[in-house]
């Protein structure tokens, strides 16, 4: 046995250090399906209580939709529970290919390949498609899974200041000696809730002969008039070389992700991407549920329209209450607190007022940038938002932060 007392003690010391720094994350146990209202046990061992959830990626309210659940049940009956295989051996069913084709049409690309998650899609794509002759130029706030995927790839790495098109242009000029250039960005940035300048990025990519990679996990299903994503929202639908996105947020919230784009790049992933080659196929039950989600969002834009209204209304309520918000036009609305301990205390107090939200602090966000990241859902009704905003106002008053701007809040922050 190698986990001797000295080793155990070393890890215990590491964990105590995280707690002492105020950076320890605990879990809360939810005793109900995911929805705008959920039943939560917090702290562990307490009585379960109902609260309004303002921190799920359940943007379209489809995570527990009865038709999605019914379709998943039907999928279990007709296609079984698990594939017990990676895709290329005996893990591909007809419904996997059907879902890939549906996503291709929805996203406006040439082909799509499912992965166990978008984390896996991002981990596998770069290494499969680029090498030391190429360069990857990423926005500095791309998702952690993209950073991890880039690190696995032998292509040169570079970054540009967040959404700074002048800086991106400098980088594209600098790297004209490389075989290929790939500009990499999130569509909607997950921690700040702002939107990438996709029209400018595509224009620069065309000018400097670069490919464009877009992780649209926080946009697929609701950004753009018909919910196809940031590229539709920005008027560049059909012009993105690679889109990765998830089935684990707006598109049902279970799991699964994909690479979608130029057919040769997708085929290279099918041939070489390690998560595709070495990880289990997406379970049939999830594929069946996702196919129903595609039916629902294809039939009507009601849900994304309601989400848009909810986000605008919520932002207005919080601004009126005097909270410091990150600007944006998405259903991600960060309430800035800057101090890690404050964000945890604030979340705890919100829970006492019947609102479920979680403090975000280092390493999830940079040090000194702690926040409560609120997220809207089409499942929220106006009365949910009114009640939740009242709770934020009450807790904000308790902590003396209402009406304070960024500089004043940062001056109070200790971490």
């Amino acid at each position, binding site marked *: 046995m190698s986990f001797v007392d000295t080793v155990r003690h070393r890890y215990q010391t590491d964990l105590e250090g995280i707690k002492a720094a105020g950076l320890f994350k605990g879990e809360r146990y939810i005793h109900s399906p995911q929805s705008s209202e959920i039943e939560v046990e917090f702290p562990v061992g307490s009585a379960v209580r109902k609260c309004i959830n303002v921190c799920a990626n359940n943007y379209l309210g489809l995570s527990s939709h009865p038709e999605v659940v019914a379709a998943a049940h039907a999928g279990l009956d007709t296609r079984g529970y698990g594939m017990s295989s990676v895709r290329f051996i005996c893990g591909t069913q007809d419904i996997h290919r059907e879902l890939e084709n549906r996503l291709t049409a929805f996203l406006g690309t040439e082909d799509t390949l499912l992965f166990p998650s978008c984390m896996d899609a991002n981990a596998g794509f770069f290494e499969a498609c680029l090498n030391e002759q190429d360069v990857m130029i*990423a926005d*500095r706030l791309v998702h952690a899974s993209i*950073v991890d995927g880039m690190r696995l790839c032998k292509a040169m*790495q*570079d*970054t540009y*200041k967040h959404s700074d098109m002048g800086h991106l242009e400098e980088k594209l000029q600098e790297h004209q000696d490389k075989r290929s250039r790939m500009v990499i960005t999130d569509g909607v940035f997950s921690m700040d809730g702002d939107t990438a300048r996709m029209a400018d990025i595509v224009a620069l990519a065309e000018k400097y002969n670069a490919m464009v990679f877009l992780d649209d996990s926080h946009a697929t299903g609701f950004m753009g008039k018909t919910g196809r994503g940031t590229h539709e929202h920005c008027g560049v639908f059909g012009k993105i070389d690679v889109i990765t996105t998830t089935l684990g947020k707006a598109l049902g919230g279970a799991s699964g992700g994909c690479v979608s784009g130029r057919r040769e790049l997708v085929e290279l992933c099918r041939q070489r991407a390690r998560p595709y080659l070495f990880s289990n196929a997406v379970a049939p039950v999830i594929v069946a549920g996702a196919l129903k989600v595609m039916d629902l969002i294809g039939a009507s834009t009601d849900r994304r329209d309601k989400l848009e209204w909810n986000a605008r209304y919520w932002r207005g309520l919080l601004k009126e209450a005097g909270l410091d918000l990150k600007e944006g036009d998405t259903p991600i609305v960060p309430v800035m607190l800057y101090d890690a301990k404050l964000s945890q205390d604030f979340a705890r107090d919100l829970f006492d007022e019947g609102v479920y939200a979680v403090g975000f602090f280092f390493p999830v966000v*940079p*040090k*000194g940038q702690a926040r409560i990241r609120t997220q809207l859902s089409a499942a929220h009704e106006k009365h949910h938002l009114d009640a939740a905003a009242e709770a934020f106002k009450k807790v904000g008053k308790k902590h003396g932060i209402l009406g304070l701007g960024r500089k004043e809040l940062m001056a109070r922050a200790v971490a």
Partner: protein
Amino acid sequence: MDEITKVVRDYIVREYLEEDDERTITDTTPLISGGIVDSFSMVSLLRFIEKKYSIDIPDQCATPEAFDTVERIVELVRRFQKAEVTKS
């Protein structure tokens, strides 16, 4: 201020600070541990000094600790400049 220090500091300000950022970068301002440069975007700083000073810094020396202040980066440049001279 010597030339290398000025070049390194000017690059850091240009490459990593936003226009409205009021922070001052001194010789000892913590860059990586202070959150000004993250380990992901550090690669462009490494590439800049290698190209500018025609040196090759091995991966094991290009650590976040070695890049944490302007002072340490300048030390690294001088160390590998000497190594290049010795080689030739």
